[in-house]
């Protein structure tokens, strides 16, 4: 009778595994950057090409880096969420205008509203590569020491902001 018990046990374990598997998203790839210092960069600003911005300028602050582009459809969906978050003043948001043209990017912000403290301009996507961007929009939460704490691939939703981003930001602010 023993070997039959093993047979049933294996089958039940398999079912349990598959049931758990249904809840997981196989396409969700964790970023290796979490817990690591944000890759350094120095890029021109979108509005004023003469000025540059470095991630080091933000040391001592908790901030969000949001990767966006005028050609990105999901960014439109995300935009109202960012505007609300910016209006609440909970955390400063910086935009990384990714593989875009300056005119398109500026026109987009003008038409849709600008949630960003400022946007930086990454025309050839080199900084995007350092940050491992593979789906725009992406959002990074970076702490006071310049360490990436959280990464959201795809559009932020009110729920993600409420359940993940804001609690994390508050925790990091206290630290």
């Amino acid at each position: 009778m023993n070997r039959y018990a093993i047979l049933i046990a294996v089958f039940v374990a398999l079912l349990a595994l598959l049931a758990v598997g249904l809840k997981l998203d196989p396409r969700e790839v964790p970023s290796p950057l979490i817990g690591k210092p944000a890759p350094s960069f120095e890029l021109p600003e979108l509005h004023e090409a003469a000025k540059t911005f470095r991630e080091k300028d933000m040391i001592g602050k908790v901030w969000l880096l949001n990767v966006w582009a005028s050609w990105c459809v999901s960014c439109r969906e995300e935009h109202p969420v960012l505007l609300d978050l910016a209006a609440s003043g909970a955390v400063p948001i910086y935009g990384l205008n990714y593989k875009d043209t300056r005119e398109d990017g500026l026109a987009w912000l003008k038409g849709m509203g600008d949630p960003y403290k400022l946007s930086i301009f990454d025309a050839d996507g080199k900084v995007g590569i350092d940050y491992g961007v593979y789906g725009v929009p992406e959002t990074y939460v970076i702490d006071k020491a310049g360490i990436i704490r959280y990464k959201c691939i795809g559009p932020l939703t009110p729920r993600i902001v409420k359940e993940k981003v804001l609690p994390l930001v508050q925790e990091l602010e206290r630290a």
Partner: protein
Amino acid sequence: MIPELGQLALALALCLALAQSVLGLLGAARGETVWMAATRHVARGQFVFVAIAFLCLAYSFIANDFTVAYVASNSNSALPLHYRIAGVWGGHEGSMLLWILMLSVWTFAVTLFSRHLPLEMVARVLGVMGLVSVGFILFILFTSNPFLRLFPAPPDGRDLNPLLQDPGMVAHPPMLYMGYVGFSIAFSFAVAALLSGRLDAAWARWSRPWTTAAWCFLTIGIALGSGWAYYELGWGGWWFWDPVENASFMPWLTGTALIHSLAVTEKRGAFRSWTVLLAIVAFALSLLGTFLVRSGVLTSVHAFATDPTRGIFILALLAIVIGGSLLVYVLRAPKIGLGGGFEPLSRESMLLANNVIFASAAGSVLLGTLYPLALDATGLGKISVGPPYFETVFVPLMAPALFLMGVGPLARWKKASLPDLASRLRWALATSVLAGLVLPFAMGRWGAMVALGLLLAAWVAASGFVQLYEKVRNASSGANSWARLQSVPRATYGMLVAHFGVAVFVVGVTLVKGYETEKDVRMERGDTVEAGGYTFRFDGVTAVQGPNYAAQRGQIVVTRDGRPVTTLNPEKRVYRVQSMPMTEAAISPGLTRDLYVSLGEPVGATAWIVRVYHKPFVDWIWGGCLIMALGGALAASDRRYRLAARRLREQYAAVAEMT
């Protein structure tokens, strides 16, 4: 109107499937002859209504009825007619309808070819198949209804996925499903035998041709899928160990084990309990394959839009169908006798080794496929298991299997003698060792893996000839050799042909792996590149228009030693509706090599990245699969099965009269 008719037909098919399982199973349990006799007719009715439902969906596709949501998302008015028909199974809902159609086709075939079987057995088999049918029709009606309307109707459809707009894809799913679903017959026979408590050689004999037939379809289905990946994905690979490929490979491996184990159970009455378990597992893995593809728990090229309720439904179905049958197995198996005994060296022991090997192979594929899921589920990280794992596992498993393939068919049942086998096979052994040593030099370079592969392939082929020679020599009837050739049973020829197909397959795999040339180069107009002794000249790219796509068509002139060989026209297509770029490779096939060219990306104004492959003997891979399937078809159509079934029925009738 037509889609509603289809839905009604499907609902009626559900009622009939329910009736089929109740009449069959209860009728057999209570000995109600009329109920059992009715089962067959009800099963045919189920087939008719499922077929009507399928035709209704096909009609909606042909008529471009975009008020049907499923048609709107999988077709387009610019899509050529044959792809509109293939579009019926181009998405989730339709492919589930195809699944159930295949099940009812098999059910119908059972009602036709079961006249020689005892009524009780037929009723139980149809009853079990009816239960599976009920589960899947419920699944379609509740979670994946292809007949739902869309209001307001869009002016045109979103088009069939361009990857599926290909002749190989038209045939791949039906063949694969015929194979998957075909294992439901062996499963139903096994469960029916468990229920009746008569687990003798009879059920094995009855289910053998069905299992072999299903195995043939699965072999062809897998080969078509592999061939499609080879020319459509543009990488020149023929097997990727993708989770969904694995999902079809696991039932194949288990089915192969089952075919061999059924032979022992039929001829010697041994392995009874194991064979029943294999029949259950083969179908369980088919269902698991369906689950893996349909639920989206694994990432793969087949990732369909996923819906968690569907996953839960199929998982529940898997739990009920397989859990239920395993429960019956656990309750009944301890009473199954052991059957004929055998010595450590005998045909039985070799077939046992075959079974152990194939079961281990299926187990290791299952492990490799589910391991990433298990790690993810337990929060230990994300990994993917790729070709290095599977290749490391497969070579050491398959090499002894190939060796046994030469010896097994020559070994006697019960007890074989080693010196006797060695002397009968000495020429085959000498030939294959010679082939392994010498043939790689003919290909230009000697390598240990190539030598091993060719040695094993030659061994399988040469020992096959020894087997044929001995069969013909020992044939009882017939004076001349032609009559003797004819007196060898068709099933034996089937086995020989299928094993020969394996040899051909091994040659293909070995030589492609050992000698292929792959070059990714940047080419300007007029540039040349050499691969495998052929010179490829890039003559630029022109724009062309297809029925529903726009393409950049490259022109590549191939020469060998200055003489023209062929002109290849690989394309980079953009399908208009889904604006999806597609690589259309150009292949010049040949018995000893394929020349394979595909366009990569344009670089700069006039240059392109061009992939140029020389693939020696690659077509032998699929040729080998087709030969295997042909062997299976020969074996499945052996008339001995029908005669044996008739004799058995008479015996049962005689026993019934006495009691």
